[in-house]
């Protein structure tokens, strides 16, 4: 037993001694006894081969593949798809346009990505609507352009939207132009679909005493730092932030631009009657798309104001066209019933047109049919005057050129809720 212990101790010591070394034991020792020079020659050849490999790697390293470092592709050509972003085509996110607007907006705007050769303008034009790009060319910087439909107009002009919807609003575009000093002018451009609607809308917002200028297809007026314009189917309102000369000048410039750039339309047939035949000023002509004189049946009625600007009374002659004579006489009857409800019958004109006297105003009103047309007068100061007007209207109608008579057609009935025409 002792021997085993001793032997274990001995070997353990030896093992311990060898384990104390960190590195290898007998690392370089080999047992071979003979050596050959041949190995050295092979070894030298192999090392020469290694040097060759080294030189080859170095050679490759110094001759890079040019395409790896060639940046010319990054510099060449236009964008791969050829499209360009149109500057200024910023629009409000779809979420803000109300329900149903997404569909309208999509059908209106260009849905597909522009192909390489498509003009970039069309995408931009859809955003601006009828607002001409020249608006931005002045010292006032053009801000965001808002586009509204009948469904979400209230977002922009809460409260007044009904008025415009009543005139058959198709769309509205608004833009605010700002100067570097902080002054601004806001433009609201309403597309009402037809010149008569725009005209009616314009006149509806006009104070009785405000004078309009009618010039080459446009009707407009200025009011301190504001302006109002109608041309073709468009009605534009311009409102400046203050009355400084800078703002007023800008308003004038903008009106001038829209006046020249907006498309005009042929003026309604009633102008031929009122202006050409009856020699009345064009600025006095107006139009009621619906609810003329607050009568629910009275759609598509043209009116002209006959009173002087500063007089107390409010005499108007009016005319409407129907599809046929039966329709006209039926509407004339409706007018008569309407006037009767406001007062009492007051005899007839010498031509046989029943007159009615208003209970409170004491003025005379009457209407009658003439072929397809309905003619009438409202708030005449006297029966004689009423008769006189009616006669003038009758004669004027007969004197209308054939072309105009043919052109005179009734407008489509406004659908419930005031949708597009």
């Amino acid at each position, binding site marked *: 037993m002792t021997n085993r212990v001793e032997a274990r101790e001995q070997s353990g010591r030896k093992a311990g001694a060898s384990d104390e070394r960190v590195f290898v034991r007998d690392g370089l020792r080999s047992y071979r006894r003979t050596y050959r020079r041949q190995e050295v020659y092979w070894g030298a050849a192999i090392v020469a081969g290694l040097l060759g490999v080294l030189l080859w790697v170095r050679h490759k390293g110094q001759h890079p593949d040019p395409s790896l470092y060639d*940046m010319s592709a*990054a*510099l*060449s*050509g*236009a*964008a791969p798809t050829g499209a360009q*972003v149109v*500057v200024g085509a910023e629009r409000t996110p779809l979420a803000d346009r109300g329900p149903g607007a997404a569909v309208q907006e999509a059908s209106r705007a260009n849905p597909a990505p522009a192909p390489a050769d498509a003009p970039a303008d069309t995408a931009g034009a859809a955003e601006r609507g009828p607002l001409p790009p020249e608006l931005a060319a002045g*010292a006032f*910087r053009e801000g965001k352009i808002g586009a509204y439909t009948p469904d979400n107009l209230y977002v922009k002009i809460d409260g007044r939207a009904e008025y415009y919807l009543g005139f058959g609003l198709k769309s509205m575009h608004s833009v605010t132009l700002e100067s*570097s000093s902080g002054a601004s002018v806001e433009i609201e451009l309403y597309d009402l679909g037809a010149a008569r609607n725009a005209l009616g809308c314009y006149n509806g917002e006009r104070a009785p005493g405000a004078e309009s200028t009618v010039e080459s297809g446009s009707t407009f007026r200025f009011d301190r730092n504001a302006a109002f314009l109608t041309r073709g189917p468009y009605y534009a309102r311009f409102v400046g932030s203050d009355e400084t000369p800078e703002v007023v000048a800008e308003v004038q410039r903008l009106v001038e631009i829209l006046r020249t750039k907006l498309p005009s339309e042929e003026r309604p047939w009633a102008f031929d009657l009122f202006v050409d035949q009856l020699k009345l000023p064009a600025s006095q002509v107006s139009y009621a798309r619906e609810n003329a004189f607050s009568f629910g049946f009275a759609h598509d009625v043209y009116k002209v104001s006959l009173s002087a600007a500063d007089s107390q009374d409010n005499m108007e002659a009016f005319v409407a066209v129907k599809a046929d004579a039966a329709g006209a006489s039926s509407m004339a009857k409706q007018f008569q019933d309407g006037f009767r409800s406001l007062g009492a019958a007051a005899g007839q004109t010498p031509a046989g047109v029943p007159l009615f006297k208003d209970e409170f105003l004491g003025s005379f009103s009457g209407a009658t049919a003439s072929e397809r047309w309905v003619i009438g007068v409202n708030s005449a100061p006297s029966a004689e005057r009423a008769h006189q007007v009616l006669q003038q209207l009758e004669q004027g109608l007969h004197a209308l050129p054939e072309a105009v008579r043919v052109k005179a057609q009734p407008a489509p009935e406004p659908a419930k809720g005031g949708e597009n025409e």
Partner: protein
Amino acid sequence: MSNERRRARQVEPTPEPSAQDLEQQRDHQRIERRALLKGALGLGGAVAAAGWVSLAPSSWPLSLRDPDGERGKPTAAVRSLPEGGFRVPDAPSVADLGVAHGTQLKPMLLAALDALGGVGRFIQRGDVVVIKPNVAFERPAALGATTNPEVLTALIEIVREAGAKEIRVADNPIESPSSCFVRSGIQAATQAAGARLFLPTPEEFALLGTPGATWIERWPFFWGPFVGANKVIGVSPIKDHNLCRASMTTKNWYGLLGGRRNQFHQDIHGIIADLALMLRPTFVVLDATRVLFRSGPTGGSLGDVKPGHTVVVSRDSLAADAYGWDNLLERQGEALPAYFAKSAARQLGQPEWRKLALREVNIG
């Protein structure tokens, strides 16, 4: 043990210890006492040390006591740039803005610097100069998104000829730094001109304190190149930028920020105003040899770039920027971006460049 042996033991009297034996025993006891003393001292020392380290008041040396966790919180040294920035003294008789047009960059830069009083006013013998170009993106120089390497070369040569001891070029790009420096040509230009290039490795960053700043009162900053530097020059291209409207010499310092700097776009004009406060350079060069007028700041198409053939040098980065806004980006009439007003409110520059003395030269 067997019973016999036990009995034998009891019967046999044990021999008395001799004096020698007792002496030996006493020596042994002495040794034992010494061992006890040593052991006890060692133990006491260890206990005392442990007690000291954990219980001695925090202010005493070698104490690790941390009753509320405050000491354990990491603190980092906050560095600061020299008081007054890297500006040279005012010299009222020279121009504030030097504008040079032409195609030969070194004469243009020299002429623009002469308008400001000559390069000797700014760089003296033995200066350590940091030049900060814009190398934010991995784009070839022709796309106008980065500083023109030829402008950088010319600037380095001018600064060296003025006697600078060491010229350092540094930027912290948005994309991979190694590729950005190579592809934009800045690395080659730096090495050919013999300047030292600093790459933004993590150890080069340190916290910088900017007192009075809104957002970067303390923020990781590319500190490495600024150790021992006493002059700083910014050289930036002129670029359109959707968020802050234009990126020019003031926004150039953005490239020295580290950390999560992508948060600052929530108040981009505020951060640019802070940058103007953070770093007051010796002078800035607005490299308008190319103008990236659209689709900036990354660009990407030659159609977004037009030649500008201009360099603008100024001590006042706001003035240089405003000049670039009006004349090179051709946005005169549009309102200046908000950072101009914010910086001007802190007296960091004069955005109304027309009120400053300007000299314009045409070279070739």
